[in-house]
């Protein structure tokens, strides 16, 4: 009786541990199952004539065009945002008070206002400057996304740079590095690794925010889905298709990045060390005072990293 209980208990623990180790795999499998059930549901609806699959397949080219614009706007905006974010973060730690103030002002304004309002303001500005230009809506939308993500990325960069121990910078100065070399050889390589997760998050948030451009008439994915409902009066088909296409972009992206991050992990930097696998001896616990100090630093870096991650997940207006 007792041994039976223990065996069951052990089995439960094994399952839990397995789920822990294969967390990402498990999530993937669940996502897959949910999608499969969803498709099955739609298939059944289609057979019953309650889902107009023909319409969806007819409109797919239009949806793909919208998806393309969504991707282009997001990718281009994000890329320029990286440069903007990096320069802003650098300005925030520069020696010039004016630069620091300008950078802080930029970040505060664009993180402190709803992106919807920013889009409308850019539209107003652009319409005043180039009222007849063919691509005025696109320009306004693109500016809104880029400038907005630049401000968020500046904060991500800043947090990532702060996470580098002061001592390493001092050691860098100690071997004759200039300010620029410190940045290029010590700070940036570590920062870039640390910020992979919050940056991925920011990309996904930006991609989702780009749907707001539909209200100023930029023909991206959400706009296409909206037009579809207006023209064909089949909102379920239209929004389902739009939703699935968004998911088709965000889910794989998050997975790929997660894999890359784990694959190129450096001990002591970013991702906490993986739990030892079942059946393999745990590494001996380090005892030294210095090691404990090292671990405290690693913990602090990890803490900051988790903080950044959480923050980026919760702070998009």
């Amino acid at each position: 009786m007792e041994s039976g209980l223990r065996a069951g208990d052990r089995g439960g623990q094994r399952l839990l541990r397995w789920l822990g180790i294969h967390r990402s795999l498990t999530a993937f499998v669940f996502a897959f199952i949910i999608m499969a059930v969803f498709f099955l549901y739609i298939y059944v609806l289609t057979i019953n004539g309650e889902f107009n699959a023909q319409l969806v397949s007819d409109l797919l080219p239009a949806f793909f065009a919208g998806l393309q614009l969504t991707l282009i706007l997001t990718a281009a905006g994000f890329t320029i945002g990286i440069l903007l974010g990096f320069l802003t973060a650098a300005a925030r730690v520069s020696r010039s008070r004016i630069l620091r103030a300008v950078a802080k002002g930029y970040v505060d304004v664009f993180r402190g206002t709803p992106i919807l309002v920013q889009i409308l303001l850019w539209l107003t500005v652009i319409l005043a400057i180039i009222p007849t230009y063919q691509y005025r809506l696109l320009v306004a939308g693109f500016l809104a996304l880029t400038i907005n993500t630049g401000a968020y990325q500046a904060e991500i960069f800043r947090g990532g740079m702060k996470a580098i121990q002061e001592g390493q910078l001092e050691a860098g100065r100690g071997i004759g590095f200039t300010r620029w070399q410190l940045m290029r050889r010590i700070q940036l390589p570590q920062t870039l690794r640390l910020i992979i997760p919050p940056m991925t998050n920011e990309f996904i948030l930006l991609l989702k925010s780009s749907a707001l451009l539909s209200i100023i008439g930029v023909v991206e994915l959400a706009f296409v889905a909206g037009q579809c409902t207006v023209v064909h009066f089949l909102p379920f088909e239209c929004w389902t298709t739009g939703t699935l296409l968004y998911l088709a972009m965000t889910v794989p992206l998050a997975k790929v990045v997660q894999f890359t991050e784990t694959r190129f992990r450096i001990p002591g930097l970013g991702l906490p060390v993986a739990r030892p696998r079942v059946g393999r001896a745990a590494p001996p616990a380090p005892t030294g005072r210095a090691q404990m100090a090292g671990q405290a630093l690693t913990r602090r870096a990890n803490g900051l990293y988790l903080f950044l991650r959480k923050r980026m997940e919760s702070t998009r207006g």
Partner: protein
Amino acid sequence: MSASRGAIRAETLHKSFGDLHVLRGVSLTVDKGEVLVILGPSGGGKSTLLRCLNLLVYPDSGQVWVDGVLTTDPRVRPEWVREQVGMVFQSFNLFTHLRAIDNVTLGLRRVKKVPAEEAADVGTRLLERVGLGDKLREFPANLSGGQQQRVAIARTLALNPKVVLFDEPTSALDPEFISEVLDVMTSLAREGMTMVVVTHEMGFAKGVGDHILFLADGEVLEEGPARDLIDHPQRARTRAFMSKILG
């Protein structure tokens, strides 16, 4: 003038942080191949003094010469000075993202512009010399404290400095790792490296140190040959310090 004497020499250094006058006219001379040990109570200015010697901190007034060159001259690039005067820190400060070998060769490649293969040869040799020939490709987080500090020493030696400063290199180490670091430092001294060492390891100070300088409240209270100063300190404050530290 007198600047030509000594591998490193400092004259009446003053340094304040705000209202806190940390160095109050400290002078020292270390001859080529000599080991100077700096002792003194916490907060006495030992770290600040070392930092002034490689210009991680600029003294408010006073001069520093390295190998006869006046390094506190504003026309001298501080980066150049730090190449000449290496420093080993209490907390190792290895670059987390680089393997042991790359920690050692980074300065060679990026400051001295030595080609990668040549730098790798030098780095390998130095890591073997500190007993880490089998850890070339480890990341710092996977090394023990003693191993990390030995990598840090190799990193400093890579630039072929004229003087190496050690700021409490074993204070952050668990007792079992202290001797391996002290051994490396001892052999370095035997090979003729000029060293300035802040430490509380009295065995090292007595056995390897040539001179000792006792620094308290930003002033040199007492200095002299290592054995004399440890065995027969003259000033009351020094005596109290010695008896406390020697238990």
